[in-house]
């Protein structure tokens, strides 16, 4: 398969939850494509819907969540599958195999009473990717590949004997055991120290290059985005409000929220007072009536709260949901 073939194709993904206050529109019309070997960063603050996006692609949301839309995964040797249309049984075949996920907190993702080598082996045996009797060698090989020194003896250790950075490496080894087409990484470095974060970011980039995976990297940190992403999708209130290649997004953001987000990054050279965004994210109860950002937007006009902005194309690779993007 050529390197620029589309691996993940999400079309109009919407997720709703019923609550006592009315329907919560956690995601509204999320559309995105990720190519092989490409990293798309999903950026946003708490409540923007970035984690709901990854959980709905993994089909890990509660039964009460109502999903709509399509999410196609295309691998070269098999026909594409729409994850959202699969039964739970079929989905079991996909998780870890076609689409895999790394979470923020490795301690809660690993089994505390099982040796880490066994946990990697489990991922291999479930999908019968490796002949029995070879799983152990392959697990140790994987642990070595994610930068764990002396993997043969480390494989016999339990999660509590490892540091946070090492545990996250184990999680990555498990996620990549079956060479998935798509990797979802949900804030995988947020709980780590900066020097370890730098190592893990570097590792994910290296492994991705080798395997040609499509990576969706979820983060709230624009610094991490700049370090790892090829393209960025900025989320706010359950919608993607702007998508662009990383360099273009940082150099010429069009959406007022993206601009505000970039402005609130501490830049040491400038010093002193930071610019925050006044107000806070609005509850997403009910279908959007206007722009979700209107109540915090510095340039909102009356139109913004009554008319939902459609996606406008800035150019071939850059799109934005704002009524007034051309004027900014």
């Amino acid at each position, binding site marked *: 398969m050529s390197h620029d073939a589309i691996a993940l194709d999400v079309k109009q993904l919407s997720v709703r939850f019923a609550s006592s206050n009315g329907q919560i529109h956690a995601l509204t019309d999320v559309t995105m494509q990720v190519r092989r070997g490409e990293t798309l960063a999903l950026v946003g603050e708490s409540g923007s819907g970035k984690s709901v996006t990854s959980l709905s692609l993994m089909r890990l949301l509660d039964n009460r969540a109502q999903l709509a839309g399509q999410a196609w995964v295309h691998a070269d040797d098999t026909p594409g599958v729409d994850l959202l249309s699969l039964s739970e049984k079929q989905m079991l075949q996909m998780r870890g195999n076609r689409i895999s996920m790394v979470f923020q907190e490795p301690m809660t993702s690993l089994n505390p009473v099982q040796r880490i080598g066994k946990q990697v082996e489990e991922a291999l045996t479930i999908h019968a990717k490796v002949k029995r009797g070879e799983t152990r060698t392959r697990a140790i090989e994987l642990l070595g590949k994610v930068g764990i020194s002396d993997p043969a003896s480390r494989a016999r250790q339990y999660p509590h004997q490892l540091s946070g950075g090492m545990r996250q490496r184990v999680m990555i080894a498990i996620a990549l055991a079956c060479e998935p087409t798509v990797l979802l990484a949900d804030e995988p470095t947020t709980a780590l120290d900066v020097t370890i974060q730098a190592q893990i970011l570097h590792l994910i980039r290296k492994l991705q290059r080798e395997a040609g995976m499509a990576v969706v990297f979820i983060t709230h940190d624009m*610094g991490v985005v*700049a370090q790892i992403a090829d393209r960025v999708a900025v989320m706010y209130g359950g919608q993607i409000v702007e998508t662009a290649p990383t360099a273009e997004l940082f150099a010429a953001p069009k959406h007022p929220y993206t601009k505000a987000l970039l402005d609130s990054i501490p830049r040491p050279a400038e010093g002193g007072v930071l610019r925050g965004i006044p107000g806070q994210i609005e509850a997403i109860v009910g279908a959007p009536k206007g722009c979700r950002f209107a109540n915090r937007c510095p340039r909102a006009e009356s139109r913004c709260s009554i008319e939902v902005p459609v996606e406008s194309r800035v150019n071939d690779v850059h799109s934005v949901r704002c009524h007034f993007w051309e004027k900014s």
Partner: protein
Amino acid sequence: MNGMKAHDQAADEAAVQPILSFDRVCREFPVKQAFLQSPKVLHALTDVSFDVRPGEIIGIVGESGSGKSTLGRLALGMMPPTSGTVRYQGQDLAGLHGRKLREVRRDLQLIFQDPNASLNGRMTIEQSMLEPFVLHKLGNRAEQRAAIARLLDVVSLPTSVLQRYPHELSGGQKQRVVIARALTLSPKVLVADEAVAALDVSVKAQIVNLLLDLRQSLGLAILFVSHDLPIVQGMCDRVLVLYLGRVMELSSRKGIQDGGLHPYTQALTRSSPVPDPARRLAAEDLLKGEVPSPLSPPSGCVFHTRCPRAMPQCSSIVPPLVHMPGHHDVACLLYDAQRAPAVAVPLASA
């Protein structure tokens, strides 16, 4: 060395008495081992000295296990040092007891990372904010109410939050409540332990600005404990960099913004993700390995096992703090004229 210090800093040190001072402070914790094994000692903080002047914001930076939270606890007199002294306005905190200690504690306040853990979920915001008044038996009901309204105004919250419960507020609002409550007793020193780490970027900026305002209007000294170097570089007057419980560097904001002198500070600066896609971290900038266990810290300079510029003598000599020009202290043999093999040249900042 003392001569150099006198030359450098005598003028302003004489002018302003430090409000808080650490003098060769060590803090150790015994750690129980398995049956029949002798207990080990965790060296949380070793030989830390620095002063905080009134109205000054000092950043305390380090990774997990650097001792930065222990330092915050010591500054509040919540635990005594194993050796050395922590002084508040000249009095040894470890020597205070009973009423005297309670009085001093009014002046020293703490805010934590997670506002959810700091507020009782079953109390309204008003009940939570009344606690310090009750504990210290201050004012009558009307005075308390007036004081609370004033405090909410300081942190820009409407009085309507008073009747609400913590779960009805956003993370940023809760952290404002926690800050307002910490200000109730008009403290002179505020220890902010990762106070903005759990907040969204846009809210983080609001809280940082609030702390800067408070310093301005109330003359608060703030110990800003954080792992986030970019934020610290933006808001602190001086920065103390800790690694495995030892001071690596104590510098003005300018010195840290220029990348710092110590190889650890430099590595920390390079590892912090830069919000610029054109400046990606290169493989050679990565620090090797992980932070060693504080139960058995490396000999000599504790950083030598990961240091890209380590020399043979680094594993045997504990580097003393060397005073560099511009109120800049660094504990590294590269800058120690007597022990360094060559003239030290600071690395160009990343």
